[in-house]
């Protein structure tokens, strides 16, 4: 009797699961594009990271990530690729991809979304197209301005030191002359003779 009731429960559970799982299983990708630099400087590296999260129930197949936002006339690619392919992203998994670019000129630049295309399940032929998040507009500072703020200023300090030499040397020489004039009298004798 007991066994039977358990069986009923188990079968009912199976039935429920089956009925719930009726919906088509699809992959669902969320893609984020992040710019990791605090200062965007002309001619310096900018690290751009793409992370793709699969929040669907099925694996995403042939995920292709393409970023057309960095044109070759504005940017040099210092590392990584702007077009990358992941064969498969399992459900609840995520992948990330990093590109390092160097801006060629300064000014405001609008960082736009990259495109993600994938097949939402193993046996589906349709290609889902999605877009990553947009980091938005960022100001790229001229290298000159950045350097003025953040360089160690070695050359400036050197000039400063050179300029300071006469100002320090002249009083020192004056003092040294006076000192050597009076240092000839031995102090010990003076004390005793008094």
């Amino acid at each position, binding site marked *: 009797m007991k066994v*039977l009731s358990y*069986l*009923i429960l188990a*079968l*009912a559970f*199976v*039935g*429920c699961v*089956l*009925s*719930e799982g*009726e*919906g088509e299983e699809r992959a*669902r*990708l*969320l*893609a*984020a594009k*992040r710019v990791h630099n605090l200062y965007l400087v002309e001619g310096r590296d900018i690290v751009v990271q793409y*992370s793709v*999260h699969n*929040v669907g129930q099925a694996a995403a197949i042939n995920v292709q990530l393409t970023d057309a936002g960095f044109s070759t006339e504005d940017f040099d690619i210092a590392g990584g690729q702007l077009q990358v392919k992941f064969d498969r992203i399992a459900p609840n998994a995520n992948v990330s991809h990093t590109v390092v670019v160097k801006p060629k000129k300064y000014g405001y630049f609008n960082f736009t*979304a990259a495109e993600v295309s994938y097949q939402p399940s193993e046996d589906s032929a349709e290609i*889902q*197209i*999605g*877009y*990553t*998040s*947009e980091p938005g507009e960022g100001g790229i500072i001229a290298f000159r301005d950045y350097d003025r703020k953040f360089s160690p200023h070695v050359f400036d300090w050197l000039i400063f030191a050179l300029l300071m030499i006469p100002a320090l040397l002249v009083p020192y020489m004056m003092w040294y002359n006076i000192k050597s004039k009076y240092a000839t009298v031995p102090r010990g004798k003076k004390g005793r003779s008094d």
Partner: protein
Amino acid sequence: MFPGMKKLLLLLLLVLPLIITTSGGKMTAWAQEDEVEGEEDDLSDDEVNVDDGTGAEIDTAEGGEEEEEEEEEATAKGSPDADTVILFTKPVGSGTELPAGKLVEFLVGFTNNGDKDFILDAIDASFRYPMDFNFYIQNFTAIPYNRAVKPRQEATVMYSFYPAEAFAARPLGLTVNLAYHDADGNAFLEAVFNQTVSIVELDEGMDGETFFLYVFMLAFSVLLLVAGHHFLSSFGHRKGGKKVVVEMGTTKRDDVDYDWLPKEVLNEIKKTPRQSPRQRKVNRDASSK
């Protein structure tokens, strides 16, 4: 009796799952649709965009709850052609526990299942009082996105904010609203996230506060040592000095304290006979000439 019962049960066993599997989807969907309808009855408001097919999903069911609270600020709600999903990337998890004073970041995915363009306008997040979601505790900046999503495409937007440290160890209602409109100009406001979250305090080994507490304690102990040393040494001196400080006038000439003079000077003084200062001056003048 018993064998007959067994057969009956076995039959039931076979029939029940069959019934469930054949009409299962509809059955569960009905139950949830009922819920939504019940709420709509409660509201009894002019709701144009009633969920139809997609109403069976839990996401939209939550959305239905949310719209109850959003009623007075926006009559619009999620479009049936749009599908939204939220994912907390920082901290990773369901988003029910957020660290106080640390960056919270989430992604909102938007899928256009209709045949018209959608334009994502903005996301705004706000902390509400968990007992009464109409009571705002903190509003976060609404970030404008202005992104078009074509039919059968999807887009992701990112939003991040810092929960204030003052909210540590408190439950708060977090509401994230996604505002968008379609090509016809119908505006929608969908609650992507509407839950009570708890703000947790991350305990690090060494934060600024404790560091400076230790620095202060160290400085205080050093100060105590210095003060103690000063007090002890001055106390000892006073004991010795007290005997000497007895004013005797100039009657007793030998009673002058010469302790502070170096020995050579004392010898010098003993050797040279006492003379008046005036005479001494004359002597010095003579020697310098």
